């Protein structure tokens, strides 16, 4: 039981609009289990209930029915937040504070003081690569920098669970690549990550398990690789293969009653090309 970082059972949330008969059901009888140390992606289109679910898990919104637990404790209790870090969607923070001041503020809210606070702030600024910008006001930060400072404040109290709501939305490819690297880093340290996104290709590379929400219901869940694997197809990637070899393989396949669906040159992703080209340009300058 305590191996579960997050457990959601029978969660339902109905928003009632005052003075109108209709109500909106944001989340419908949701069940989720997130194991300690895994990266879980909660996916779905806009309006599918992802943000609402995350907010309920964090105790920011109260459920209509059902329960949510973090590390075995009821997540509506404030005490559970000592071990959780949250990066909300499109955060702004306080524009008039510098990077350092922002982290100090959140650190104090978590009970950090004095030298501990100072060291931690420095450590996190280094981690997210904002050391140079640490004395600039957040009003001057780019979107990517804001996301990174957001990530830093989420980590300020060394949480065992990090919740990220659309961590790469609106961030340029370089920035989002860095964020993804950070997430992989968290995983290496044993931190559980729960993230929500609708940018599917980006999260494909980092999530262990995913859940797909549509109109408030969990329609699919499971380990990523299993879900996206096309069952009866295999890919074989070769380097320096001659034409003759290729023809032999095709003949073998047909003999074994397999079908060659497609043969093509491997491609990189557009994202990798972009990153390579832009970083080369940066080096030449």
């Amino acid at each position, binding site marked *: 039981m305590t191996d579960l970082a997050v457990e959601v059972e029978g969660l339902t949330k109905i928003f009632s609009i005052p003075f109108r008969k209709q109500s909106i059901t944001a989340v419908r009888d949701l069940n989720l289990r997130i194991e300690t140390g895994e990266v879980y992606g909660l996916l779905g289109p806009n309006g599918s209930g992802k943000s609402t679910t995350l907010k309920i898990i964090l105790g920011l919104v109260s459920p209509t029915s059902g329960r949510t637990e973090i590390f075995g404790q009821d997540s509506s209790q404030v005490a559970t937040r000592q071990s959780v870090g949250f990066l909300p969607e499109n955060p702004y923070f306080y524009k*008039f504070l510098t990077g350092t001041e922002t982290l100090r503020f959140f650190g104090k809210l978590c*009970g950090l003081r004095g030298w501990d606070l100072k060291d931690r702030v420095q450590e996190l600024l280094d981690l997210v690569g904002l050391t140079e910008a640490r004395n600039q006001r957040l009003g001057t930060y780019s979107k990517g920098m804001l996301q990174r400072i957001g990530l830093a404040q989420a980590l300020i109290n060394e949480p065992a669970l990090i919740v990220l709501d659309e961590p790469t939305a609106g961030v340029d490819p370089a920035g989002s690549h860095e964020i993804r690297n950070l997430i992989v880093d968290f995983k290496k340290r044993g931190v559980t990550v729960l993230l929500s996104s609708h940018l599917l290709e980006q999260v494909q590379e980092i999530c262990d398990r995913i859940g797909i929400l549509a109109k408030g219901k969990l329609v699919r869940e499971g380990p990523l690789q299993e879900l996206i694997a096309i069952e009866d197809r295999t890919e074989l990637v070769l380097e320096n293969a001659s034409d003759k070899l290729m023809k032999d393989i095709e003949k073998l396949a047909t003999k074994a009653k397999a079908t060659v669906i497609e043969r093509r040159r491997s491609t990189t992703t557009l994202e990798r090309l972009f990153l390579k080209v832009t970083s080369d340009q940066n080096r030449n300058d």
Partner: protein
Amino acid sequence: MTEQISTVAKYRRFSPWRVLALATNALVELARQKVFYVLLIFALILIGSSVLMARFAFQQEFQILKDVSLGAMSLFTSILAIVATARLIPQDLEDRTLYTILAKPVPRYEYILGKLFGALLLLAISIAVMAALFAAILYLREQSVLDQTWRQMRSGPPGQVDDALSTIRASGLNSDIFVGVTVIFLKASLLAALTLFISTFATTNIFTVVVMVVVYFIAHLQPVAREYWLQQAHAGWISRGFLALVALIFPDLQAFNLVDDIVAGVAIPMAIFTKTLLLGIFYIVIYTMAAIFVFYGKEL
């Protein structure tokens, strides 16, 4: 790292440090508002311009100086209390900083307390600055008039000179003025707490400010409503019910208008000052608790 609870810091149910962090943050945020500087400078100009009243006899001059200064302090802190506090919570919601703060181990009531104390700090600092300027001007003018008078009457009989000097001192700087400043602060704090309460359920900033302006005026009529309700037995039950609602819901802001009488030179008895202080604190506590209660149910 497989520990469940972070080893960095233990969670404490109530932490004054958290509240302090929230309060200083609110203070910095508010102090950056342009409206704060505009109001403060305007108030300082108003107080300073009363020096131009030197054309009157000293009693009138001191009278006007006190009236204008205390009136300016009262007016501007009332406005500041409402306008500054109204935007605290909506701004956090809009910037989504509210989520990041409440996702930390911060109980909602501490958040409200932090905002309130930040606003109170702002008011205290403003009043201190204005009171310092006012006291300095009054003291300097008083010294100047004392000096002038002593020089004019130097050859006169000592009894008369003492009489004249003590008359001047009586109209000048005295301790009751600082009682007045404290009461002004108390009234502004009350307005801040009430504004914070309204802002917990108001939909927009403007709504809060407009409601508070209306509340301000009605609250000055509360004592009238209260006495009419409790004394007029023959009025219809609808009007009595309405008066009862006004009397119960609104604070008695007239009780904090000691300023007028302080300026008139009437000494405020300690008993009244203490009771006013306690009543003011009581109001602040009620409205803060109401704000916390509403905030706990707020969907974010």
